[in-house]
């Protein structure tokens, strides 16, 4: 018996070794520079010729990196790196065969540090008061700060540029500008003030910036234990906004500027577009919020197309719910949809950005009801119902993105309860409700993560570790850890609210993150997001 076991164990070991050899096209190596020697925290990316998939790993404290077995097949790979202050000296590419390939990557100091700064690093570098910088948090919605700081325009020449940008729809990217049909009220005095400030931080007064460029440190320790996969989408105009996976592991995303629902096969990188019928041909196209209902079907908020859409996952067809004519105009905009508990009462929640109000869709009649949750509050204050969640009775919880409130609408009575956040002017943005009745949300303008307990009606807040991060969204995973991302720092934040311990994973390229999603079916969990300005989907796999 004992000898039989030994033989079986030996056979198993042999088979395992064979299996490793069979799939191994592993790439390993070192990263170094003459200034630092072996370098920790350098992102090394490999993209196979002709493939939309790029895989990135990070060098450890000995400067070593290792692509996991099975991630790279044989072929020719372009290499790139990300390490603030450095460029890739060589090699620029590598050919992988059947076995292990080990390379030595050399870095040289960059000649253009400004091209490598994140929005967060520009925020930190720029002189000025917090009040001066505050309006710039809006700029990131459409472009990075590099466009601003490299401008040579003075305040007078910037003024009409800013005025013109105010005519663009918020679902605008550099790759696809969309005009608003309805004019937005913009106060010249505020625009002049902003133009005057921008002229102090750009190149209008000389060939170099009149301040030192500040950079954040490279990743260290746990922040290097990660594999990041980028899926480049087939058109530069695709602007993935909300990303989520389904039960079969397929990846779905809303396209912020084109009227498609996107599907990505994470194994091959193949992309499928599902065209959404255009309701208002003259209005900007594109969708924002992508949510799943309890049946697993997907719902989209149609932005300026005015309404919401349901995507049947079995038939792969849309059913549209346009806003009725009495409530529709050129400014009508639905950025959010919340179908999670529609089976309770046949109602789906949405918002009307133009009227700073909530909308509720009756699925039987197709009619929307307009609910102003702020009708009792003083006029003259800006509000904007944004991120939404529904509890088991289809009561709505929403974020007041223009102000500082979490709101609740009672599904039965329609009565609104407003809960000001402990931090004033926090501008809560996106949210999720976990199984314990905790509403997790980001305080975009306050650089905080927040939690509102819907049972005790109480708040908790945590500062994000890096200032000027401006977190957009948040996700509580199965392990009780929070994941967050945004438009400023090119980093994904992993935060444990119990211990306060955090990790920030640097991403391989400038990344404008909106909705974040965590796939809890894997161990460790898998983080997903879109690069809204980069036409790519990101998968981030922590190794612990």
């Amino acid at each position, binding site marked *: 018996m004992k000898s039989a076991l030994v033989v079986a164990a030996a056979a198993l070991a042999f088979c395992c070794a064979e299996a490793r050899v069979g799939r191994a096209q592993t790439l390993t190596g070192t990263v170094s520079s003459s200034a630092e020697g072996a370098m920790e925290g350098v992102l090394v990316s490999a993209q196979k010729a002709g493939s939309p998939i790029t895989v990135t790993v990070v060098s450890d404290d000995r400067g070593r990196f290792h692509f996991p077995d099975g991630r790279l097949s044989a072929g020719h790979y372009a290499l790139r790196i990300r390490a603030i202050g450095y460029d890739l000296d060589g090699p620029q590419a590598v050919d992988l065969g059947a076995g292990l390939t080990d390379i030595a990557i050399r870095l040289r100091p960059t000649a253009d540090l400004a091209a490598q700064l994140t929005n967060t690093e520009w925020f930190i570098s720029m002189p000025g008061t917090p009040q001066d910088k505050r309006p710039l948090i809006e700029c990131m919605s459409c472009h990075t700060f590099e466009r601003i700081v490299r401008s040579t325009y003075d305040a007078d020449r910037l003024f009409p540029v800013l005025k013109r940008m105010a005519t663009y729809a918020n679902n605008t990217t550099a790759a696809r500008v969309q005009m608003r049909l309805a004019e937005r009220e913009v106060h010249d005095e505020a625009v002049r003030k902003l133009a005057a400030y921008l002229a102090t931080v750009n190149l209008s007064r000389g060939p170099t910036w009149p301040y030192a460029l500040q950079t954040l440190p490279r990743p260290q320790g746990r922040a290097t234990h990660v594999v990041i996969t980028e899926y480049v989408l087939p058109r530069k105009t695709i602007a993935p906004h909300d990303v989520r996976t389904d039960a079969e592991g397929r990846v779905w995303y809303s396209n912020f500027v084109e009227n498609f629902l996107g599907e990505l096969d994470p194994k091959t990188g193949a992309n499928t577009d599902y065209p959404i019928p255009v309701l208002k041909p003259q209005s900007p196209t594109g969708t924002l919020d992508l949510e799943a209902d309890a049946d697993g079907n997907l719902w989209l908020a149609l932005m300026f197309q005015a309404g919401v859409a349901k995507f049947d996952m079995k038939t792969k067809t849309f059913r549209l719910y346009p806003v009725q004519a009495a409530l529709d105009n050129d400014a009508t905009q639905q950025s959010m949809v919340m179908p999670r508990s529609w089976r309770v009462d046949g109602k789906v929640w949405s918002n009307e950005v133009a009227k700073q109000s909530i909308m509720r869709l009756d699925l039987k009649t197709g009619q929307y009801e307009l609910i102003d949750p702020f009708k009792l509050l*003083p006029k003259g204050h800006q509000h904007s119902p944004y991120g939404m969640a529904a509890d088991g009775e289809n009561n709505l919880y929403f974020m007041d993105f223009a102000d500082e409130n979490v709101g609740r609408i009672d599904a039965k009575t329609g009565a*609104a309860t407003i809960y000001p956040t402990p931090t004033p002017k926090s501008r809560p943005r996106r949210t999720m409700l976990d199984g314990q009745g905790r509403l997790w949300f980001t305080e975009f303008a306050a650089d905080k993560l927040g939690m509102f307990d819907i049972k005790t009606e109480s708040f908790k807040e945590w500062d994000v570790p890096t200032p000027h991060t401006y977190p957009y969204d948040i996700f509580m995973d199965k392990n009780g850890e929070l994941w967050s991302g945004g438009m400023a720092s090119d980093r994904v934040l992993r935060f444990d609210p119990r211990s306060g311990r955090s990790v920030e994973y640097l991403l391989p390229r400038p990344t404008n993150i909106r909705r974040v999603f965590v796939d809890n079916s894997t161990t460790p969990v898998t983080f997903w997001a879109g690069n809204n300005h980069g036409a790519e989907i990101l998968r981030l796999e922590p190794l612990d």
Partner: protein
Amino acid sequence: MTPDRLWLCVAIVAASLAVPSLSRAGGVGFTDDEVNNADDGPSYFGFVREVDGPGVADAKVTAALKDQGALVTRTDIMGVYKIPGFGKEINPDDVIISCAKDGYTQDSVVRRPREAGDTKDPVEVECYLKRK
């Protein structure tokens, strides 16, 4: 002035000094700091405390208009709360202040007298809890 009222005054003055600098920071678009306060009704403030006892921290305070809606906040470590208030068209006398905390029941609510027709000055309301 009693020590409690002295503390309350200090807290309100401190809050008043803090709010302008914070409220200048934030908002939407190019006009983010523009807030028109002309339509603001009075705010509501005061202590939540145990009957004949200290202030109660982290108590829930609700300012409600019956069947219409509510503003909800919590007391600070001293038991002080401040609720920004409703629009000026809301009669402060119609606003019901209540307080709650686990382990307590509400005992009484005392509203400081105000001048008739005063629609701007903050409304001071104390809310008393007793242990269950």
